[in-house]
Protein backbone atom coordinates (compact mmCIF):
# COMPACT_ATOMS: atom_id res chain seq x y z
CA UNK A 1 0.00 0.00 0.00
CA UNK A 2 1.11 3.54 -0.64
CA UNK A 3 3.18 4.96 2.13
CA UNK A 4 2.36 8.63 1.74
CA UNK A 5 5.01 9.84 4.13
CA UNK A 6 7.77 8.54 1.84
CA UNK A 7 6.20 9.36 -1.50
CA UNK A 8 8.67 8.45 -4.23
CA UNK A 9 7.52 9.06 -7.76
CA UNK A 10 9.09 7.06 -10.58
CA UNK A 11 10.29 9.55 -13.16
CA UNK A 12 9.66 7.43 -16.25
CA UNK A 13 6.01 6.51 -15.50
CA UNK A 14 4.95 9.10 -12.96
CA UNK A 15 3.68 6.28 -10.72
CA UNK A 16 4.50 6.06 -7.01
CA UNK A 17 6.92 3.33 -5.95
CA UNK A 18 6.56 1.12 -2.89
CA UNK A 19 9.45 3.01 -1.31
CA UNK A 20 11.68 -0.04 -1.13
CA UNK A 21 14.82 -0.58 -3.12
CA UNK A 22 16.60 -3.85 -3.92
CA UNK A 23 20.00 -3.51 -5.54
CA UNK A 24 18.87 -0.38 -7.28
CA UNK A 25 15.58 -1.90 -8.44
CA UNK A 26 12.40 -0.22 -7.28
CA UNK A 27 8.89 -1.61 -7.45
CA UNK A 28 6.06 0.48 -8.88
CA UNK A 29 2.98 0.69 -6.71
CA UNK A 30 0.49 0.90 -9.56
CA UNK A 31 -3.00 1.55 -8.17
CA UNK A 32 -5.74 -1.00 -8.89
CA UNK A 33 -7.87 -0.05 -11.89
CA UNK A 34 -10.82 1.96 -10.66
CA UNK A 35 -13.41 -0.14 -12.52
CA UNK A 36 -12.05 -3.29 -10.83
CA UNK A 37 -11.94 -1.75 -7.40
CA UNK A 38 -15.50 -0.45 -7.56
CA UNK A 39 -16.82 -3.80 -8.76
CA UNK A 40 -15.10 -5.39 -5.74
CA UNK A 41 -16.75 -2.89 -3.38
CA UNK A 42 -20.09 -3.41 -5.06
CA UNK A 43 -19.76 -7.17 -4.58
CA UNK A 44 -18.98 -6.73 -0.90
CA UNK A 45 -22.08 -4.58 -0.46
CA UNK A 46 -24.16 -7.09 -2.49
CA UNK A 47 -22.99 -9.98 -0.31
CA UNK A 48 -24.44 -8.34 2.77
CA UNK A 49 -27.86 -9.00 1.27
CA UNK A 50 -27.23 -12.73 1.50
CA UNK A 51 -26.70 -12.47 5.24
CA UNK A 52 -30.27 -11.36 5.62
CA UNK A 53 -31.96 -13.34 2.86
CA UNK A 54 -30.33 -16.75 3.25
CA UNK A 55 -29.25 -18.99 6.16
CA UNK A 56 -25.98 -17.38 7.21
CA UNK A 57 -24.86 -16.90 10.76
CA UNK A 58 -24.29 -20.02 12.88
CA UNK A 59 -25.51 -19.64 16.42
CA UNK A 60 -25.61 -21.97 19.39
CA UNK A 61 -28.56 -24.29 18.76
CA UNK A 62 -29.14 -23.30 15.18
CA UNK A 63 -28.48 -20.59 12.66
CA UNK A 64 -30.16 -17.51 11.27
CA UNK A 65 -32.77 -18.87 8.84
CA UNK A 66 -32.78 -15.89 6.47
CA UNK A 67 -35.78 -13.86 5.33
CA UNK A 68 -36.49 -16.10 2.32
CA UNK A 69 -36.63 -19.23 4.48
CA UNK A 70 -34.57 -21.11 1.89
CA UNK A 71 -33.09 -24.50 2.76
CA UNK A 72 -31.18 -26.83 0.44
CA UNK A 73 -33.36 -29.76 1.49
CA UNK A 74 -36.50 -27.73 1.00
CA UNK A 75 -35.22 -26.73 -2.44
CA UNK A 76 -34.60 -30.30 -3.55
CA UNK A 77 -38.00 -31.32 -2.21
CA UNK A 78 -39.61 -28.56 -4.28
CA UNK A 79 -37.59 -29.66 -7.34
CA UNK A 80 -38.77 -33.22 -6.90
CA UNK A 81 -42.36 -32.13 -6.46
CA UNK A 82 -42.10 -30.15 -9.68
CA UNK A 83 -40.75 -33.23 -11.40
CA UNK A 84 -43.58 -35.32 -9.99
CA UNK A 85 -46.09 -32.74 -11.18
CA UNK A 86 -44.59 -32.88 -14.69
CA UNK A 87 -44.91 -36.63 -14.76
CA UNK A 88 -48.13 -36.75 -12.76
CA UNK A 89 -50.51 -37.46 -15.64
CA UNK A 90 -48.63 -40.39 -17.08
CA UNK A 91 -47.27 -41.76 -13.80
CA UNK A 92 -50.80 -41.48 -12.39
CA UNK A 93 -52.04 -43.58 -15.28
CA UNK A 94 -49.29 -46.13 -14.59
CA UNK A 95 -50.42 -46.30 -10.98
CA UNK A 96 -54.07 -46.74 -11.92
CA UNK A 97 -53.68 -49.20 -14.78
CA UNK A 98 -52.91 -52.88 -14.61
CA UNK A 99 -49.83 -54.13 -16.43
CA UNK A 100 -52.00 -55.55 -19.19
CA UNK A 101 -53.79 -52.23 -19.67
CA UNK A 102 -50.45 -50.40 -19.86
CA UNK A 103 -49.09 -52.80 -22.45
CA UNK A 104 -52.29 -52.52 -24.50
CA UNK A 105 -52.32 -48.70 -24.59
CA UNK A 106 -49.70 -47.62 -27.18
CA UNK A 107 -49.10 -44.16 -25.69
CA UNK A 108 -48.87 -45.38 -22.11
CA UNK A 109 -46.72 -48.35 -23.11
CA UNK A 110 -44.32 -46.03 -24.91
CA UNK A 111 -44.03 -43.86 -21.79
CA UNK A 112 -43.60 -46.94 -19.60
CA UNK A 113 -40.79 -48.22 -21.80
CA UNK A 114 -38.99 -44.87 -21.75
CA UNK A 115 -39.49 -44.49 -18.01
CA UNK A 116 -38.49 -48.09 -17.43
CA UNK A 117 -35.41 -47.76 -19.59
CA UNK A 118 -33.98 -44.92 -17.53
CA UNK A 119 -34.58 -46.81 -14.31
CA UNK A 120 -33.11 -49.94 -15.90
CA UNK A 121 -29.92 -48.05 -16.74
CA UNK A 122 -29.41 -47.05 -13.11
CA UNK A 123 -30.61 -50.12 -11.29
CA UNK A 124 -30.55 -53.18 -13.52
CA UNK A 125 -27.81 -52.58 -16.10
CA UNK A 126 -24.91 -53.36 -13.74
CA UNK A 127 -25.99 -57.02 -13.73
CA UNK A 128 -28.18 -57.48 -16.79
CA UNK A 129 -26.12 -55.26 -19.10
CA UNK A 130 -26.99 -51.86 -20.53
CA UNK A 131 -29.29 -53.42 -23.15
CA UNK A 132 -30.45 -56.35 -21.05
CA UNK A 133 -28.03 -58.69 -22.77
CA UNK A 134 -26.85 -60.21 -19.48
CA UNK A 135 -23.52 -61.94 -18.89
CA UNK A 136 -22.30 -65.17 -17.31
CA UNK A 137 -24.42 -65.64 -14.20
CA UNK A 138 -26.80 -62.78 -15.02
CA UNK A 139 -29.77 -63.68 -17.22
CA UNK A 140 -30.10 -62.32 -20.72
CA UNK A 141 -33.44 -60.50 -20.86
CA UNK A 142 -33.57 -60.11 -24.62
CA UNK A 143 -33.84 -63.76 -25.61
CA UNK A 144 -37.47 -64.40 -24.68
CA UNK A 145 -36.31 -67.23 -22.41
CA UNK A 146 -37.43 -66.59 -18.88
CA UNK A 147 -36.12 -68.37 -15.82
CA UNK A 148 -39.06 -67.34 -13.66
CA UNK A 149 -41.61 -66.79 -16.39
CA UNK A 150 -41.99 -64.08 -19.01
CA UNK A 151 -45.58 -62.98 -18.51
CA UNK A 152 -46.06 -59.42 -17.27
CA UNK A 153 -47.20 -60.53 -13.82
CA UNK A 154 -44.33 -62.97 -13.50
CA UNK A 155 -41.76 -60.35 -14.45
CA UNK A 156 -43.32 -57.91 -12.00
CA UNK A 157 -43.19 -60.55 -9.26
CA UNK A 158 -39.50 -61.19 -9.97
CA UNK A 159 -38.59 -57.49 -9.93
CA UNK A 160 -40.59 -56.76 -6.79
CA UNK A 161 -39.47 -59.70 -4.68
CA UNK A 162 -36.25 -60.81 -6.34
CA UNK A 163 -34.72 -64.24 -6.41
CA UNK A 164 -33.11 -65.81 -3.34
CA UNK A 165 -33.18 -62.29 -1.96
CA UNK A 166 -34.32 -63.03 1.56
CA UNK A 167 -37.73 -61.55 0.70
CA UNK A 168 -40.34 -64.09 1.91
CA UNK A 169 -42.21 -63.74 -1.41
CA UNK A 170 -39.04 -63.94 -3.49
CA UNK A 171 -38.24 -66.84 -5.77
CA UNK A 172 -36.52 -69.70 -4.02
CA UNK A 173 -35.00 -72.89 -5.27
CA UNK A 174 -31.38 -73.64 -6.02
CA UNK A 175 -29.61 -75.93 -8.40
CA UNK A 176 -28.31 -78.53 -5.92
CA UNK A 177 -24.59 -79.24 -5.67
CA UNK A 178 -24.86 -82.78 -7.00
CA UNK A 179 -21.12 -83.36 -6.84
CA UNK A 180 -20.14 -81.55 -3.66
CA UNK A 181 -23.03 -83.02 -1.70
CA UNK A 182 -22.28 -86.52 -2.96
CA UNK A 183 -25.58 -87.08 -4.76
CA UNK A 184 -23.88 -88.06 -8.02
CA UNK A 185 -20.45 -89.50 -8.67
CA UNK A 186 -17.90 -87.85 -10.91
CA UNK A 187 -18.62 -90.36 -13.65
CA UNK A 188 -22.35 -89.76 -13.47
CA UNK A 189 -21.79 -86.02 -13.66
CA UNK A 190 -19.68 -86.48 -16.78
CA UNK A 191 -22.40 -88.63 -18.32
CA UNK A 192 -25.25 -86.30 -17.56
CA UNK A 193 -23.21 -83.28 -18.71
CA UNK A 194 -22.62 -84.99 -22.04
CA UNK A 195 -26.35 -85.67 -22.29
CA UNK A 196 -27.24 -82.05 -21.50
CA UNK A 197 -24.81 -80.79 -24.13
CA UNK A 198 -26.41 -83.17 -26.65
CA UNK A 199 -29.82 -81.58 -26.03
CA UNK A 200 -28.81 -78.39 -27.81
CA UNK A 201 -25.90 -79.72 -29.87
CA UNK A 202 -26.99 -83.03 -31.40
CA UNK A 203 -24.32 -85.71 -31.29
CA UNK A 204 -23.92 -89.23 -32.60
CA UNK A 205 -22.22 -90.36 -29.39
CA UNK A 206 -24.13 -92.55 -26.98
CA UNK A 207 -25.53 -90.43 -24.17
CA UNK A 208 -28.09 -92.90 -22.89
CA UNK A 209 -26.26 -93.33 -19.55
CA UNK A 210 -26.51 -89.60 -18.97
CA UNK A 211 -30.14 -89.62 -20.05
CA UNK A 212 -30.91 -92.17 -17.33
CA UNK A 213 -29.16 -90.08 -14.65
CA UNK A 214 -31.03 -87.03 -15.94
CA UNK A 215 -34.41 -88.72 -15.71
CA UNK A 216 -33.77 -89.71 -12.10
CA UNK A 217 -32.12 -86.55 -10.79
CA UNK A 218 -32.74 -83.58 -13.05
CA UNK A 219 -36.17 -84.18 -14.57
CA UNK A 220 -38.11 -83.26 -11.39
CA UNK A 221 -37.08 -79.62 -11.91
CA UNK A 222 -35.99 -79.34 -15.54
CA UNK A 223 -38.77 -81.60 -16.79
CA UNK A 224 -38.68 -84.91 -18.63
CA UNK A 225 -38.04 -83.13 -21.90
CA UNK A 226 -35.56 -80.71 -20.23
CA UNK A 227 -37.67 -77.73 -21.24
CA UNK A 228 -37.39 -76.22 -17.78
CA UNK A 229 -39.96 -75.01 -15.27
CA UNK A 230 -40.41 -71.33 -14.43
CA UNK A 231 -42.11 -72.21 -11.12
CA UNK A 232 -38.80 -73.32 -9.66
CA UNK A 233 -36.54 -71.25 -11.90
CA UNK A 234 -35.22 -74.30 -13.72
CA UNK A 235 -33.92 -73.21 -17.12
CA UNK A 236 -34.74 -74.79 -20.44
CA UNK A 237 -31.69 -76.89 -21.35
CA UNK A 238 -32.59 -77.53 -24.97
CA UNK A 239 -31.64 -74.11 -26.33
CA UNK A 240 -28.24 -72.54 -26.86
CA UNK A 241 -28.98 -69.86 -24.30
CA UNK A 242 -26.94 -70.52 -21.20
CA UNK A 243 -26.81 -68.63 -17.94
CA UNK A 244 -23.40 -69.91 -16.87
CA UNK A 245 -22.12 -71.52 -20.06
CA UNK A 246 -23.13 -74.50 -22.17
CA UNK A 247 -19.81 -76.23 -22.68
CA UNK A 248 -19.32 -79.58 -20.97
CA UNK A 249 -16.78 -78.28 -18.44
CA UNK A 250 -19.07 -75.48 -17.25
CA UNK A 251 -22.05 -77.81 -17.04
CA UNK A 252 -19.94 -80.20 -14.96
CA UNK A 253 -19.00 -77.33 -12.69
CA UNK A 254 -22.67 -76.38 -12.39
CA UNK A 255 -23.58 -79.96 -11.50
CA UNK A 256 -20.73 -80.27 -9.02
CA UNK A 257 -21.11 -77.03 -7.08
CA UNK A 258 -24.72 -76.08 -7.77
CA UNK A 259 -25.98 -72.66 -8.74
CA UNK A 260 -28.26 -70.04 -7.31
CA UNK A 261 -27.85 -66.42 -8.37
CA UNK A 262 -29.30 -63.64 -6.27
CA UNK A 263 -31.52 -60.88 -7.49
CA UNK A 264 -32.40 -58.17 -4.97
CA UNK A 265 -36.02 -57.42 -4.11
CA UNK A 266 -36.67 -54.04 -5.69
CA UNK A 267 -40.07 -53.59 -4.10
CA UNK A 268 -38.47 -51.94 -1.10
CA UNK A 269 -36.32 -49.62 -3.20
CA UNK A 270 -38.49 -48.51 -6.12
CA UNK A 271 -42.03 -47.13 -6.15
CA UNK A 272 -44.87 -49.13 -7.74
CA UNK A 273 -45.07 -46.98 -10.89
CA UNK A 274 -41.35 -47.47 -11.58
CA UNK A 275 -41.69 -51.22 -11.12
CA UNK A 276 -44.61 -51.30 -13.55
CA UNK A 277 -42.61 -49.30 -16.07
CA UNK A 278 -39.62 -51.60 -15.62
CA UNK A 279 -41.85 -54.62 -16.08
CA UNK A 280 -43.24 -53.32 -19.35
CA UNK A 281 -39.75 -52.36 -20.54
CA UNK A 282 -38.21 -55.73 -19.67
CA UNK A 283 -41.20 -57.55 -21.12
CA UNK A 284 -40.71 -55.68 -24.39
CA UNK A 285 -36.96 -56.38 -24.38
CA UNK A 286 -37.45 -60.09 -24.64
CA UNK A 287 -40.44 -60.04 -26.91
CA UNK A 288 -42.60 -60.96 -23.95
CA UNK A 289 -44.82 -63.92 -23.35
Amino acid at each position, binding site marked *: MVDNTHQDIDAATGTATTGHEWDGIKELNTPLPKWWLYILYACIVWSVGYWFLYPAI*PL*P*GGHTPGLLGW*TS*RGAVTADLQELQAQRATLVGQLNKSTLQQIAADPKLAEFARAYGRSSFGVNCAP*CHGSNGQGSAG*YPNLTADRWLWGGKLDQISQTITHGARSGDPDGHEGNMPAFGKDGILTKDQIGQVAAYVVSLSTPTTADVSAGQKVFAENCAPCHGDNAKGNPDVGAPNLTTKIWLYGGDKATIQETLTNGRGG*HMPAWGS*KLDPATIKALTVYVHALGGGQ
Partner: protein
Amino acid sequence: MSMWKHHAIFEKNSLVLLVGILIVIAIGGLVEIGPLFYLKSTIETVDGVRPYTPLELAGRNIYVREGCYLCHSQMIRSLRDEVERYGHYSLAAESKYDHPFQWGSKRTGPDLARVGGKYSDDWQRGHLNDPRSVVPGSVMPRYGFLAETPLDFAHIQEDMQVLAIEGVPYTPDLIAKAKVDIKAQLSPDDPSVADLVKRYPKAVAHASLGGEAGPTEQDALVAYLQMLGTTVDFKLFDAKANWR
Protein backbone atom coordinates in the same frame (compact mmCIF):
# COMPACT_ATOMS: atom_id res chain seq x y z
CA MET B 1 -7.66 6.98 1.55
CA SER B 2 -6.31 7.50 4.98
CA MET B 3 -7.37 4.00 6.09
CA TRP B 4 -4.37 2.57 4.25
CA LYS B 5 -2.01 4.66 6.37
CA HIS B 6 -2.99 2.60 9.41
CA HIS B 7 -2.50 -0.55 7.42
CA ALA B 8 1.20 0.22 7.35
CA ILE B 9 1.28 -0.51 11.09
CA PHE B 10 0.59 -4.18 10.30
CA GLU B 11 3.09 -4.27 7.51
CA LYS B 12 5.89 -2.82 9.53
CA ASN B 13 5.44 -4.56 12.91
CA SER B 14 5.54 -8.32 12.75
CA LEU B 15 4.14 -8.66 16.26
CA VAL B 16 1.11 -6.53 15.43
CA LEU B 17 0.61 -8.57 12.25
CA LEU B 18 0.77 -11.78 14.31
CA VAL B 19 -1.86 -10.52 16.74
CA GLY B 20 -4.00 -9.42 13.80
CA ILE B 21 -3.75 -12.86 12.20
CA LEU B 22 -4.69 -14.55 15.46
CA ILE B 23 -7.77 -12.36 15.83
CA VAL B 24 -8.93 -13.06 12.27
CA ILE B 25 -8.40 -16.82 12.63
CA ALA B 26 -10.16 -16.79 15.99
CA ILE B 27 -13.25 -15.24 14.38
CA GLY B 28 -13.19 -17.80 11.58
CA GLY B 29 -12.72 -20.59 14.09
CA LEU B 30 -15.57 -19.41 16.29
CA VAL B 31 -17.93 -19.17 13.37
CA GLU B 32 -17.00 -22.54 11.88
CA ILE B 33 -16.13 -24.66 14.90
CA GLY B 34 -18.38 -23.14 17.56
CA PRO B 35 -21.64 -24.49 16.16
CA LEU B 36 -20.20 -28.00 16.10
CA PHE B 37 -20.46 -27.98 19.88
CA TYR B 38 -24.20 -27.73 19.41
CA LEU B 39 -24.49 -30.82 17.26
CA LYS B 40 -28.19 -31.27 17.90
CA SER B 41 -28.82 -28.71 15.20
CA THR B 42 -26.37 -30.36 12.80
CA ILE B 43 -27.23 -34.05 13.10
CA GLU B 44 -30.86 -35.00 12.60
CA THR B 45 -32.64 -37.39 14.90
CA VAL B 46 -33.07 -40.52 12.82
CA ASP B 47 -34.07 -44.01 13.84
CA GLY B 48 -32.05 -46.96 12.69
CA VAL B 49 -28.50 -45.65 12.40
CA ARG B 50 -26.27 -48.09 14.26
CA PRO B 51 -22.53 -48.59 14.69
CA TYR B 52 -20.83 -50.92 12.22
CA THR B 53 -20.64 -54.59 13.08
CA PRO B 54 -17.03 -55.71 13.63
CA LEU B 55 -16.98 -57.33 10.18
CA GLU B 56 -18.35 -54.21 8.50
CA LEU B 57 -15.84 -52.15 10.43
CA ALA B 58 -13.02 -54.38 9.19
CA GLY B 59 -14.40 -53.96 5.66
CA ARG B 60 -14.53 -50.22 6.15
CA ASN B 61 -10.87 -50.26 7.16
CA ILE B 62 -10.08 -51.95 3.86
CA TYR B 63 -12.21 -49.43 1.99
CA VAL B 64 -10.16 -46.66 3.60
CA ARG B 65 -6.86 -48.49 3.08
CA GLU B 66 -7.49 -49.04 -0.63
CA GLY B 67 -8.48 -45.41 -1.05
CA CYS B 68 -11.91 -46.18 -2.49
CA TYR B 69 -12.95 -42.65 -1.48
CA LEU B 70 -10.57 -41.29 -4.12
CA CYS B 71 -13.00 -42.36 -6.83
CA HIS B 72 -16.27 -43.00 -4.98
CA SER B 73 -18.18 -40.51 -2.88
CA GLN B 74 -20.58 -41.51 -0.12
CA MET B 75 -22.68 -38.40 -0.12
CA ILE B 76 -25.87 -38.01 -2.09
CA ARG B 77 -26.26 -34.27 -2.34
CA SER B 78 -29.62 -32.59 -2.06
CA LEU B 79 -29.95 -32.06 -5.79
CA ARG B 80 -32.73 -33.41 -7.97
CA ASP B 81 -30.56 -35.42 -10.33
CA GLU B 82 -28.71 -37.08 -7.48
CA VAL B 83 -31.84 -38.02 -5.59
CA GLU B 84 -33.35 -39.39 -8.81
CA ARG B 85 -30.33 -41.56 -9.45
CA TYR B 86 -29.06 -42.62 -6.04
CA GLY B 87 -32.04 -42.29 -3.73
CA HIS B 88 -32.76 -40.08 -0.72
CA TYR B 89 -30.12 -37.46 -0.06
CA SER B 90 -27.59 -38.39 2.61
CA LEU B 91 -28.25 -37.35 6.18
CA ALA B 92 -25.58 -36.19 8.58
CA ALA B 93 -26.85 -38.84 11.00
CA GLU B 94 -25.97 -41.58 8.55
CA SER B 95 -22.28 -40.91 8.90
CA LYS B 96 -22.25 -39.98 12.55
CA TYR B 97 -20.33 -43.14 13.45
CA ASP B 98 -17.80 -42.67 10.64
CA HIS B 99 -14.36 -41.68 11.88
CA PRO B 100 -13.25 -40.43 9.46
CA PHE B 101 -16.29 -40.05 7.23
CA GLN B 102 -15.96 -41.19 3.62
CA TRP B 103 -18.04 -38.51 1.92
CA GLY B 104 -15.37 -37.81 -0.67
CA SER B 105 -15.86 -35.41 -3.52
CA LYS B 106 -14.50 -37.32 -6.50
CA ARG B 107 -16.85 -39.31 -8.66
CA THR B 108 -14.80 -41.26 -11.13
CA GLY B 109 -17.08 -44.07 -10.02
CA PRO B 110 -20.66 -43.75 -8.82
CA ASP B 111 -21.72 -42.63 -5.38
CA LEU B 112 -21.86 -45.52 -2.92
CA ALA B 113 -23.87 -44.02 -0.08
CA ARG B 114 -26.86 -46.30 -0.81
CA VAL B 115 -25.23 -49.13 -2.72
CA GLY B 116 -26.06 -51.65 0.02
CA GLY B 117 -28.39 -54.41 -1.14
CA LYS B 118 -28.60 -52.94 -4.63
CA TYR B 119 -26.64 -55.79 -6.18
CA SER B 120 -26.03 -59.35 -5.03
CA ASP B 121 -22.97 -60.49 -3.08
CA ASP B 122 -21.91 -62.46 -6.15
CA TRP B 123 -22.05 -59.31 -8.22
CA GLN B 124 -19.97 -57.39 -5.70
CA ARG B 125 -17.36 -60.15 -5.63
CA GLY B 126 -17.28 -60.57 -9.40
CA HIS B 127 -17.07 -56.83 -9.81
CA LEU B 128 -14.21 -56.49 -7.31
CA ASN B 129 -12.32 -59.33 -8.99
CA ASP B 130 -12.80 -57.97 -12.49
CA PRO B 131 -14.99 -54.90 -12.90
CA ARG B 132 -15.04 -55.30 -16.70
CA SER B 133 -16.73 -58.68 -16.37
CA VAL B 134 -19.99 -57.00 -15.38
CA VAL B 135 -19.54 -53.35 -16.39
CA PRO B 136 -17.77 -53.40 -19.76
CA GLY B 137 -16.84 -49.71 -19.82
CA SER B 138 -15.56 -49.57 -16.25
CA VAL B 139 -12.15 -48.02 -15.51
CA MET B 140 -11.99 -49.40 -11.96
CA PRO B 141 -8.85 -51.39 -11.11
CA ARG B 142 -9.18 -55.06 -10.23
CA TYR B 143 -9.18 -55.89 -6.54
CA GLY B 144 -8.98 -59.64 -6.96
CA PHE B 145 -6.21 -59.91 -4.39
CA LEU B 146 -8.71 -59.07 -1.66
CA ALA B 147 -10.29 -62.48 -2.23
CA GLU B 148 -6.97 -64.18 -1.62
CA THR B 149 -5.83 -62.11 1.37
CA PRO B 150 -6.90 -63.45 4.76
CA LEU B 151 -8.66 -60.82 6.83
CA ASP B 152 -6.47 -59.66 9.69
CA PHE B 153 -8.88 -58.81 12.47
CA ALA B 154 -6.50 -59.31 15.39
CA HIS B 155 -6.86 -55.63 16.32
CA ILE B 156 -10.54 -55.14 15.67
CA GLN B 157 -11.27 -54.76 19.40
CA GLU B 158 -8.68 -51.99 19.71
CA ASP B 159 -10.30 -50.30 16.72
CA MET B 160 -13.64 -50.43 18.48
CA GLN B 161 -12.15 -49.12 21.72
CA VAL B 162 -10.70 -46.11 19.91
CA LEU B 163 -14.03 -45.46 18.19
CA ALA B 164 -15.79 -45.75 21.56
CA ILE B 165 -13.56 -42.94 22.82
CA GLU B 166 -14.59 -40.90 19.80
CA GLY B 167 -18.25 -41.34 20.72
CA VAL B 168 -19.37 -44.47 18.88
CA PRO B 169 -21.56 -46.44 21.30
CA TYR B 170 -19.48 -49.63 21.35
CA THR B 171 -20.14 -51.01 24.81
CA PRO B 172 -17.59 -53.25 26.55
CA ASP B 173 -19.99 -56.12 25.81
CA LEU B 174 -19.99 -55.40 22.07
CA ILE B 175 -16.21 -55.11 22.08
CA ALA B 176 -15.81 -58.37 23.98
CA LYS B 177 -17.98 -60.21 21.43
CA ALA B 178 -16.28 -58.66 18.38
CA LYS B 179 -14.54 -61.78 17.15
CA VAL B 180 -17.60 -63.95 17.78
CA ASP B 181 -19.64 -61.47 15.77
CA ILE B 182 -17.21 -61.56 12.86
CA LYS B 183 -17.58 -65.33 12.64
CA ALA B 184 -21.35 -65.10 13.07
CA GLN B 185 -21.77 -62.61 10.26
CA LEU B 186 -19.97 -64.99 7.92
CA SER B 187 -22.12 -67.99 8.86
CA PRO B 188 -25.56 -67.21 7.41
CA ASP B 189 -27.09 -70.48 8.57
CA ASP B 190 -25.70 -70.37 12.08
CA PRO B 191 -28.02 -69.60 15.04
CA SER B 192 -25.43 -67.08 16.30
CA VAL B 193 -26.63 -64.69 13.58
CA ALA B 194 -29.74 -64.00 15.67
CA ASP B 195 -27.57 -62.72 18.53
CA LEU B 196 -25.62 -60.58 16.07
CA VAL B 197 -28.81 -59.00 14.75
CA LYS B 198 -29.92 -58.32 18.31
CA ARG B 199 -26.72 -56.39 18.90
CA TYR B 200 -26.63 -54.75 15.46
CA PRO B 201 -30.17 -54.39 14.06
CA LYS B 202 -30.60 -55.13 10.34
CA ALA B 203 -27.15 -56.75 10.14
CA VAL B 204 -27.04 -59.25 7.28
CA ALA B 205 -24.90 -62.37 7.31
CA HIS B 206 -22.92 -63.17 4.19
CA ALA B 207 -21.50 -66.46 3.00
CA SER B 208 -17.71 -66.41 3.28
CA LEU B 209 -15.66 -67.63 0.38
CA GLY B 210 -12.59 -67.99 2.61
CA GLY B 211 -13.57 -71.52 3.65
CA GLU B 212 -11.25 -73.26 6.10
CA ALA B 213 -8.66 -70.52 5.76
CA GLY B 214 -11.01 -68.10 7.48
CA PRO B 215 -12.53 -64.87 6.24
CA THR B 216 -10.88 -62.89 3.46
CA GLU B 217 -10.59 -59.15 3.09
CA GLN B 218 -13.14 -59.38 0.30
CA ASP B 219 -15.67 -60.95 2.70
CA ALA B 220 -15.33 -57.96 5.01
CA LEU B 221 -15.45 -55.38 2.22
CA VAL B 222 -18.58 -56.94 0.72
CA ALA B 223 -20.27 -56.94 4.14
CA TYR B 224 -19.45 -53.24 4.46
CA LEU B 225 -20.62 -52.33 0.95
CA GLN B 226 -23.84 -54.29 1.38
CA MET B 227 -24.86 -52.33 4.48
CA LEU B 228 -24.17 -48.85 3.12
CA GLY B 229 -27.29 -46.74 3.33
CA THR B 230 -29.52 -49.56 4.52
CA THR B 231 -30.05 -48.63 8.15
CA VAL B 232 -32.48 -45.72 7.88
CA ASP B 233 -36.10 -46.40 6.96
CA PHE B 234 -37.05 -43.26 5.07
CA LYS B 235 -40.73 -44.08 5.32
CA LEU B 236 -40.37 -43.13 8.99
CA PHE B 237 -38.15 -40.11 8.42
CA ASP B 238 -39.78 -36.72 8.89
CA ALA B 239 -38.02 -34.87 6.09
CA LYS B 240 -39.79 -31.57 6.57
CA ALA B 241 -38.85 -31.34 10.24
CA ASN B 242 -35.25 -31.68 9.16
CA TRP B 243 -35.11 -29.12 6.38
CA ARG B 244 -31.90 -27.15 6.58
